[in-house]
């Protein structure tokens, strides 16, 4: 399990004692001893790394949760995230008596943290240190924790030895994901500002559940791997750290659990190269997100600008600004996540690989939000393709159906709106057209690609793909079809 002190650490500790000077210490002795002390400190640090990652990640679920218009939801949503993780762990992991003590300690720690955060509501000074709004009554929190414990015991009993039953949980998570993405009416009475003389009129909003999209995908990944018998055995603490790993909770990437565990279980040797590389990625991410993306946000396409802008040149400027803004924003977050992960010895997977320089849409989707695309490929696209092939359906139709539904789902994962659906369909059509064109070109031109004009076709492909993607962003950036069509008209000089 990698929990025992590693042999490297022992070596380091022993060598410190060996280094203790017997005679008067020389300068080099003192320096070497100092270095060893630093190493020992680092080694000790590594032994608490996992615990630190676990506690920080659990706290981050609460700390990063934005305020919600419904009272106490900023406490209940993070708590629900933790409960879901524990429930899925109970449903997917075998009962191991030898690990019972550690499990109880971890479960106790989670319950203690939840109760502790809830208890902060008793004080007026500390009530909002972790959550944005005061937590609910501590007795209600205690009752909820007790209910959570009972639920977990029940799940462990029901799912023990029945991996196929995990499918129920997959459907439950999908249903929950759909519910979260729906627009819910929020009445004035629910809003915290309801103390005003007249209640605010009801408004509609999605539930701002921090990181739930990513949490749900990691949980579904674990459930599917369990159903396929490929999920490794792991402790509750490891699983919790994987699912709510704080650098990756906001914007991914979506790591695979067995890969994550490999890094988590590896002895953490404090080393300069991780520090430098992690720091470098972190700085690049900060620059991309907070300098480039946030500056571009000022001039990037949004609902207001789409209808206010004059037709023609400026509309293109807004569109290009949005295209680069979303790239730098998202890849900046990813860089920060990868950099932070690296600082803690976790090598998160890459999510972007110069997507706007790809000569076709297929390559674009192999280099944009790669871990999400990979997730859909593994758990939706490939199984569906296999299923359709077995039914003797014409390959082009299979491609059309699988690509369209996959891209539609990716679109709807961002939000259940017509525009996200259209964005998905837009890319599906692009991917389908590209696959047909590739097929046609291969049959027609064969391997004549190495012509002198190859770079021209490559460049043309890059420009064409970029613009196809950029037009797609119109659906993605704007909230409704009418505004999007208005903006398309503006792009082409029409009022």
């Amino acid at each position, binding site marked *: 399990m990698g929990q025992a002190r590693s042999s490297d650490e022992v070596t380091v500790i022993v060598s410190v004692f060996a280094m203790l000077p017997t005679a008067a210490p020389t300068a080099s002795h003192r320096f070497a001893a100092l270095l060893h002390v630093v190493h020992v400190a680092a080694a000790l640090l590594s032994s608490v790394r996992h615990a630190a990652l676990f506690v920080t990640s659990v706290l981050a679920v609460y700390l990063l949760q934005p305020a919600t218009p419904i009272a106490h939801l900023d406490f209940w949503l993070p708590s629900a995230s933790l409960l879901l993780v524990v429930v899925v762990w109970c449903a997917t992991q075998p009962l191991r008596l030898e690990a019972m003590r550690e499990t109880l300690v971890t479960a106790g720690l989670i319950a203690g943290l939840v109760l502790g955060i809830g208890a902060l509501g008793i004080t007026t000074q500390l009530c909002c240190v972790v959550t944005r709004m005061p937590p609910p009554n501590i007795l209600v929190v205690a009752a909820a924790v007790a209910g959570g414990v009972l639920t977990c015991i029940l799940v462990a009993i029901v799912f023990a030895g029945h991996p196929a039953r995990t499918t129920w949980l997959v459907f439950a998570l999908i249903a929950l994901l759909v519910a979260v993405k729906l627009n819910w009416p929020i009445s004035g009475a629910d809003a915290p500002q309801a103390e005003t003389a007249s209640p605010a009129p009801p408004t509609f909003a999605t539930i701002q559940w921090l990181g739930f999209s990513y949490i749900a995908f990691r949980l579904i990944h674990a459930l599917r791997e369990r159903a396929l018998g490929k999920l490794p055995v792991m402790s509750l603490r490891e699983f919790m750290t994987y699912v709510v790993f704080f650098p990756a909770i906001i914007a991914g990437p979506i790591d695979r659990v067995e890969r994550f565990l490999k890094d988590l279980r590896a002895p953490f040797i404090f080393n300069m*190269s991780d520090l430098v590389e992690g720091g470098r990625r972190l700085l690049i991410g900060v620059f991309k997100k907070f300098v480039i993306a946030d500056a571009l946000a000022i001039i990037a396409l949004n609902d207001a600008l789409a209808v206010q802008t004059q037709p023609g040149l400026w509309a293109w400027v*807004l569109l290009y600004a949005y295209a680069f803004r979303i790239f730098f924003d998202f890849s900046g977050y990813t860089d920060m996540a990868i950099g932070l992960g690296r600082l803690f010895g976790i090598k998160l997977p890459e999510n972007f690989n110069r997507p706007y320089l790809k000569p076709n849409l297929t390559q674009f989707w192999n280099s944009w939000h790669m871990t999400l695309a990979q997730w859909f490929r593994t758990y939706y696209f490939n199984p569906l393709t296999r299923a359709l092939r077995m039914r003797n359906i014409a390959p082009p139709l299979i491609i059309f159906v699988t690509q369209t539904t996959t891209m539609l789902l990716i679109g709807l994962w961002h939000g259940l709106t017509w525009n996200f659906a259209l964005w998905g369909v837009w890319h599906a059509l692009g991917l389908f057209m590209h696959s047909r064109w590739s097929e046609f070109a291969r049959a027609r031109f064969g391997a004549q690609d190495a012509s002198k004009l190859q770079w021209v076709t490559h460049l043309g492909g890059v420009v064409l793909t970029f613009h196809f993607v950029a037009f797609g962003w119109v659906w993605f950036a704007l909230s409704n079809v009418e505004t999007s069509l208005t903006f398309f008209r503006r792009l082409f000089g029409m009022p």
Partner: protein
Amino acid sequence: MNANINFYIRASLKALALFIAFNVVLVFVDPMPVIARLSVYNLLVPGRERLPHARQPSREYGVTTSNLDVMFNTHVIHGRVKTADEYRVVVLGDSAAWGWKLRPAETMVGAMNAQNLITPDGRKVRVYNLGYPIASAMRDLLLLDYAMRYRPDMIIWMVTFETLNDKTRFDHPLVRDNGTQVRSLNERYSLEADPALWELGYRDRTLFGLRRKIMADAFRLQLYGLPWAATGIDHDYFSPYDRVSRDLKEGDLFYDIPPKTLNEDEMTWDVVAAMHQLAGERPLLIVNEPILIADGKNSDVRYNNVYPRWIFDQYRALMLSKSAQEGWNYLDLWDLIPPDQFTDNEFHMTPNANRILARSIEAWMIEQWAKPEAAMKSP
């Protein structure tokens, strides 16, 4: 890897040294005049019709900054070289002149420009809006001092009692944030100095202090130039607002001041005199801007919720006598606009009211041009 680590350590140390050196330079050298010159306005995007001011930058495509170089470099006046056939008029004043809740074309300046006036010697009258929210005489002197480099031929100064009330002399962000310039004006025109007037301290001149915000605002204002160019929007004139009430509050206090005699020393006459000195031979027209004269509850003791009658009547009397005594060009248009033409407060007016106001001022200008002693000189 060692080579890499050494590279990063050396690069970090060099970056740190450069950062420290840059901050030290900032303590002694103000980079803003140079930075402000690097403006996209009047180059890549059109200049703004009025000085930048935005409470909600993301809706109004602008940023409120106190740096005069940055403010003026975004303005259309900065990008327009004065030609021999232009008669250049600048308008100073508060938010009513700036055009609160109005598009640039709907302001008094917009209405004047729409008239395409021609002077008797054939020059085209082009009016520039240099109004800025919140009334302050010292602020207007500061703006005029800067605007003189654009060689105006005439200055129109929209005032109200709040403008000339000595209490508002230093009570304006532009005055507070431009201590060096205000101090210089105080010295040049022997004005009353504020001992509390401050200048940027050592820390504030570095990136750890106010200078970072000033530079960031300048940069943001450049970026907002693009949505401004794309939309022509520089202010939130599209959100609904509550109309100003014509039923007035109880009592006759002016803020917390009960009725009393308004003394001459409560007015910033020294600033008015400095404005005239600064204007030199150019005509300076002082306009007592229209206010809401409410007709509802308590309107027998108050004109509106800002001015009780006792103070505004005394102010008008003082202005009339002082301008006659000093020979100032003074136009008292306080009651020109009917109450239904005011928008969200006692000074902000509808486009129609601004047109009426513009016609009155134009009439005064034409009348002056017709006088035989009015020589049309261009400075």
